[in-house]
């Protein structure tokens, strides 16, 4: 039952202290009860000495009771004293021999009974005492003595029985409470240890996560700085190449042979292109790296704002543009404008004259999917994924060199980057020659 030593102090005498006054009171009641019993003349045949001895016995019991329950010596001493009293009583009753017997028996049996009691086997002791009390009473009755003469013995035995019972209860209670207190203390200790261990683990984990977060954030900062400085550093020599080449063309262009002139023109145009790519990269990078606080975004407004810069081109081509009902999503407002500006720009650019552009949306449990559809040449089969790569443009339907319409092939890559930041996806479904539909799926709720 008891598994470990308690770490706290448990005082078993506490429970003892609690029950002793009650028991003590009970014994005094008994003692005076007996006295009363006798005084009221219910014991007419008893000579005065018996009366006195009975009172004396009870008084002594009351006084030594507390000690008797915890000290064997005191208990045995009391028994001895009680034995003497019994002897005297029976002497006054007229038969010394008979008086001795119960004393001897009592002494013999209750001695181990007391021993047993202090070791928690009081039930057995009580059994003996009870049995023995009955035996004594029976013996006297059988021997023809007045039953009432046997009263002192019986009463004292009964009193002693109660002593045992009380001691038994107390010891059992003590054990039970000890066990419970131990178990409780043990449980408390275990809980405290667990709690401390848990707190420790949580603290470790938190600092781990903090470290990871700091590392990631530093990495992101490094990355951003890297891209920024690399693009700037690259731009300077490209600009210089372009300017010098142009100057060369100015000064010596007319003197050059046709092929050399052609090479020079090529150099200039390549430098221009490189520059333009860097410029686009820097502009797009600025947008996608810019930290925006997410909010509820009304996509209808987003799409309208995104379309504004392309409106004049759409009008010039006589395009028919229709916006369907669009949902509200959670995201970074400016960046979403950028995404749709790119998709709509592409649609306007690739739609044929008097073509059609539709923007629709579908909502479901996971979020919303917006579709930007045009009826232009579409994407050739196999290029649906590569067009989202950096600096990659969709080839002509014939699969030849990419169209030189000024785009550097960055728009879709950045659009995908932004959509990914929103934990969404963007993809295209297209049949070559029958237009293309770009889908943007944005999850519902805060990312």
């Amino acid at each position: 039952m008891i598994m470990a030593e308690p770490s706290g102090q448990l005082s078993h005498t506490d429970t003892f202290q609690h029950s002793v006054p009650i028991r003590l009171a009970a014994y005094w009641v008994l003692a005076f009860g007996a006295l009363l019993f006798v005084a009221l003349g219910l014991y007419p045949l008893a000579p005065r000495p018996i009366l006195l001895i009975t009172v004396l016995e009870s008084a002594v019991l009351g006084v030594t009771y507390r000690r008797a329950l915890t000290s064997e010596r005191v208990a045995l001493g009391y028994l001895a004293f009680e034995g003497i009293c019994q002897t005297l009583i029976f002497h006054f009753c007229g038969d010394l021999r008979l008086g001795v017997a119960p004393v001897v028996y009592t002494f013999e049996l209750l001695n181990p009974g007391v021993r047993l009691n202090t070791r928690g086997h009081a039930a057995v002791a009580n059994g003996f005492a009870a049995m023995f009390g009955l035996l004594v009473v029976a013996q006297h009755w059988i021997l023809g003595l007045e039953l009432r003469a046997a009263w002192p013995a019986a009463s004292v035995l009964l009193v002693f029985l109660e002593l045992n019972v009380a001691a038994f209860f107390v010891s059992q209670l003590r054990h039970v409470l000890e066990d419970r207190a131990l178990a409780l203390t043990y449980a408390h200790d275990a809980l405290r240890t667990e709690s401390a261990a848990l707190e420790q683990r949580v603290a470790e984990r938190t600092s781990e996560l903090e470290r990871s977060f700091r590392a990631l954030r530093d990495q992101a900062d490094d990355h951003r700085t890297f891209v920024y400085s690399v693009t700037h550093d690259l731009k300077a020599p490209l600009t210089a190449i372009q300017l010098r080449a142009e100057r060369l063309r100015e000064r010596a262009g007319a003197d050059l042979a046709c092929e050399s002139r052609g090479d020079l023109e090529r150099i200039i145009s390549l430098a221009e292109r490189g520059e333009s790519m860097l410029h686009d990269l820097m502009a797009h990078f600025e947008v996608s790296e810019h930290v925006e606080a997410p909010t509820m975004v009304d996509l209808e407004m987003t799409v309208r704002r995104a379309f504004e810069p392309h409106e004049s081109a759409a009008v010039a081509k006589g395009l028919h543009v229709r916006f369907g009902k669009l949902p509200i999503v959670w995201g970074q407002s400016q960046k979403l404008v950028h995404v749709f500006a790119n998709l709509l720009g592409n649609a306007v650019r690739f739609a044929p004259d008097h073509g059609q552009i539709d923007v629709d949306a579908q909502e479901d449990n996971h979020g919303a999917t917006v579709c930007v559809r045009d009826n232009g040449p579409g994407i050739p089969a196999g290029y649906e994924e590569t067009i989202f790569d950096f600096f990659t443009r969709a080839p002509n339907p014939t699969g030849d060199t990419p169209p030189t319409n000024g785009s550097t092939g960055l728009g879709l890559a950045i659009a995908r980057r932004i959509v990914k930041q929103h934990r969404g996806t963007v993809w295209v479904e297209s049949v070559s020659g029958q237009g293309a539909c770009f889908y943007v799926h944005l999850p519902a709720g805060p990312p």
Partner: protein
Amino acid sequence: MMTRRVLLVDDDREFLELSCSVLEEQHPEVTVTAANSGTAALALISEAPGVGGQKPFDVAILDLRLGDMTAVDVLRRAQMALAGVPILVLTQALWKGDEAAVLAAGATLVLEKPSKLLALRRLLDVFVASGHPPSE
């Protein structure tokens, strides 16, 4: 007419050389002084002879990033010396945030750095020609 004094500041040596060369070709009447860093620019500004209430330079063209500091730092430190001088700041990428701060520091105009020869020529023409003649 007095010789116009132009200060060009850029940490990109290539561009600096090219701009000087183009400017000297186009405007032989102009004296061009070049500085390769912010520190050098500040040194030149403080050393330049200023007769009476004359300014150290008539026109200044600076790149935004100068390696050791930015054009904004130079303008702030040379605020007194360059007061009233037309100042052009060129930047690689025209981000909105930068522009306001640069103008507030005392620049007259902020433009994107030209990568076409023609644009560079026009820019230098207009800006060098627009400088006010030094006051007497």
